[in-house]
């Protein structure tokens, strides 16, 4: 079945998206960009250029380059090129055809059906013209939907019950406000308002003007007449505007911006966010009145708006977000890329109409990480949070002490590194492990979460194949609030938890090293000088009886013990190589032991001996 697409046919830019595996995705155009300028040009030699290419030649060919055709949709406006007349829908069709062809190239299959969006205020003639444009472009237009409706779909608001939402859409050149009522999957437009000539480009222009004036004031030179310089200023202005959405100040450094008889001149101007907001305050304020007009048309008080969605690239500006927050006294939704939101929603609508969404298997994720408690009370993660289920994962663990015949598997969920801070889901014991030195037994622990979110945990001794298991029903059945709280707590305690864990790991390592050292004393008996062995024994006793409460102290003890071990093993090596021919080389064994504290690949689990 051919893919269906959703198209945001914008005044300045257009975007195309499709749904895959239940998720909408933007399709990049042939030039590799996710936004395609809504520009069409007829070259002198009869070619038709669409998008970026049309823009690049616009000033050479202004009377044959068409920008913002959307403003003329549904009117009798005609464009005359070489004695041929074009309707707005024919021009729009050229843009749609490029989007369709680029989508086909990207998807590797034919695209026939599409959903196209229009502003909520478009009348029947304008909607009809948009539909015609689609048909001319060779698309079966399944439906024309409102841009704010598409945004609501992108945010999944249709699934949240009856509510009133306001969509604040500030794009490159137009501003739209729409109030919608959503209930039972039905979208009703209650009011629309806006400003057809207000957008991000106006903000850029303010910065350019500021730079020109500043330079004139400082250097007495007017830069506004030089096209090439203006081009540099335009690029710098847009970059500064974007930076000021995340930084409090930005530097505009343009060396060799111009030259006089006395030599080259450079531009070096610092622009703070406060300055930028002051010089564009009137632009941002111009969005206030349409909001109130829409509210009054819908006979609603700001407090009656359940959600506010920010759409359009210019809503990334903090001043815009502040204004919206101030009016509605609530955080607006802005988590979906505001440039792509409308196209993503259109793609969802297209997939629903084509019956694709229904066929999608809805996959769930684990809201919190799952794992087990290991040596020293550490929480060892087996399945990370946000993993799509069903999923299954195995890991091999081992014992913590010699001759340990049973292990306790403590299953937990949460985001904190220490087991005690997480939520216990259950425990079980695997016994009957044949006695062996620590680190030798192999115990395979398997986590399996089925499609219903039920967690099965099993532990198997690979030597005897003896197995125990536990099933945690509703293990992930926490409320959204509880999950959020747990995730937030983990973030808040991140630093302190990291230190605690580091300390325990260091202590585990030291314990392993003591074990290694004691083994070395036994193995090396009679093979090295008694003095050395006594020295090592003394160090072991000292380390054992020392206070191991802080990390630095543990590290110091670890180094001390390591030194004592090295002294013994060095002599052992030296002796061994002297009598190389006589015995199987024991040093190999020793070497392994001296690394033992690191426990390559296996993790001791805190299995208590029964």
């Amino acid at each position, binding site marked *: 079945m051919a893919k269906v697409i959703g198209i945001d046919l914008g005044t300045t830019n257009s975007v195309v998206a499709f749904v895959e*595996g239940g998720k909408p995705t933007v399709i990049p155009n042939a030039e590799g960009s996710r936004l395609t300028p809504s520009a069409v040009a007829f070259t002198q030699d009869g070619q038709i250029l669409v998008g970026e290419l049309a823009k690049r030649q616009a000033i050479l060919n202004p009377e044959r380059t068409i920008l913002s055709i959307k403003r003329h949709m549904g009117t009798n406006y005609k464009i005359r090129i070489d004695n041929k007349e074009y309707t707005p829908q024919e021009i729009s069709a050229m843009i749609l055809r490029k989007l369709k062809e680029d989508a086909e190239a990207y998807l590797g299959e034919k695209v026939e059906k599409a959903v196209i969006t229009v502003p909520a205020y478009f009348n029947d003639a304008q909607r009809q013209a948009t539909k015609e444009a689609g048909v001319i472009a060779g698309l079966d237009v399944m439906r024309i939907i409102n841009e704010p409706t598409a945004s609501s779909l992108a945010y999944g608001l249709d699934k949240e019950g009856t509510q009133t939402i306001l969509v604040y859409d500030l794009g490159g050149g137009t501003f739209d406000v729409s109030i919608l009522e959503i209930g039972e999957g039905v979208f009703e437009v209650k009011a629309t308002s806006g400003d057809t000539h207000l957008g991000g480009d106006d903000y850029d222009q303010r910065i350019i003007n500021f730079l020109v004036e500043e330079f004139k004031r400082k250097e007495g030179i007017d830069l506004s007449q030089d096209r090439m310089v203006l081009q540099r200023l335009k690029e710098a202005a847009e970059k500064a505007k974007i930076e000021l959405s995340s930084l409090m100040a930005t530097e505009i450094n343009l060396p*060799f911006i111009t030259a006089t008889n006395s030599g080259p001149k450079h531009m070096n101007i610092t622009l703070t966010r406060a300055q930028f907001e002051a010089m564009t305050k009137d632009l941002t304020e111009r969005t206030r009145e349409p909001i109130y007009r829409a509210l009054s048309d819908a006979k609603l008080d700001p407090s009656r708006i359940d959600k506010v969605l920010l759409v359009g690239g210019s809503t990334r500006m903090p001043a815009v977000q502040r204004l919206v927050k101030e009016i509605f006294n609530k955080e607006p939704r802005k988590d979906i890329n505001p440039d792509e939101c409308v196209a993503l929603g259109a793609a969802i609508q297209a997939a629903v109409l084509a019956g694709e969404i229904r066929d*999608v298997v809805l996959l769930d994720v684990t809201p919190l990480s799952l794992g087990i408690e290991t040596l020293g009370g550490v929480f060892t993660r087996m399945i990370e949070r946000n993993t799509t289920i069903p999923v299954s994962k195995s890991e091999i663990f081992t014992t913590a002490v010699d001759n340990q015949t049973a292990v306790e598997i403590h299953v937990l969920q949460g985001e904190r590194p220490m087991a005690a801070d997480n939520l216990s889901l259950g425990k079980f014991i695997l016994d009957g492990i044949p006695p062996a030195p620590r680190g030798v037994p192999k115990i395979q622990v398997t986590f399996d979460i089925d499609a219903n979110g039920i967690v099965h945990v099993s532990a198997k001794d690979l030597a005897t194949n003896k197995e125990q298991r536990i099933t945690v029903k509703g293990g992930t059945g926490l409320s959204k609030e509880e999950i959020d709280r747990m995730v937030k707590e983990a973030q808040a305690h991140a630093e302190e938890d990291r230190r605690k864990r580091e300390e325990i790991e260091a202590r585990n390592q030291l314990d392993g090293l003591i074990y290694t050292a004691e083994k070395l004393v036994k193995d090396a008996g009679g093979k090295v000088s008694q003095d050395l062995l006594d020295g090592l024994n003394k160090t072991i006793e000292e380390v054992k009886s020392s206070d191991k409460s802080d990390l630095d102290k543990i590290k110091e003890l670890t180094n001390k013990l390591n030194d004592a071990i090295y002294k013994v093993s060095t002599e052992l090596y030296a002796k061994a190589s002297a009598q190389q021919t006589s015995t199987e080389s024991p040093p190999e064994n020793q070497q392994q032991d001296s690394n033992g504290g690191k426990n390559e690949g296996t993790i001791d689990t805190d299995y208590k001996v029964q």
Partner: protein
Amino acid sequence: MEEELKENLPAEDIAMIKEQYKELEDKFLRLAADFDNYRKRMAREIEELKDVIRIELIRSLLPLLDDIERAFSSIPADRDDGIRDGIEMIMKNFQDWLTSQGVKTIEISDDIFDPKYHEVVVVEEDENIDKDKVEELRTGYTLNDRVIRPTMVKIIKKVKEGN
């Protein structure tokens, strides 16, 4: 299996189960196909992404080269204290690095304007030329046939006398 069902279940239940089986199989096949296509496209996209990331990086470095070039051309040609030569060497090192990355300079041939590679920022008119001229204002570059940035050009249009 089929035999067993026939024995124990009424015909309409069997029909329903068959229907459900078909539906599930269809869902499964669609998902498997979606995933397979996704995997293929990801493999292709990762390849392309390597270029895209390099293009982004190189594009963000180009203004520095522009500045070095501006610095160089602002030094009088007769200055011989070594500064000019030094700047020229920095410029050359930068350009050599671009070449080693596979970056190519966009050339303007025969004064032909091509919007695929050129962007017009200035248009002028002249009576005293034979045909339209295309002048480079800022160098453009490509990587593997993808435009990193188009060459910025000035076009001088030939106009007839008395026009």
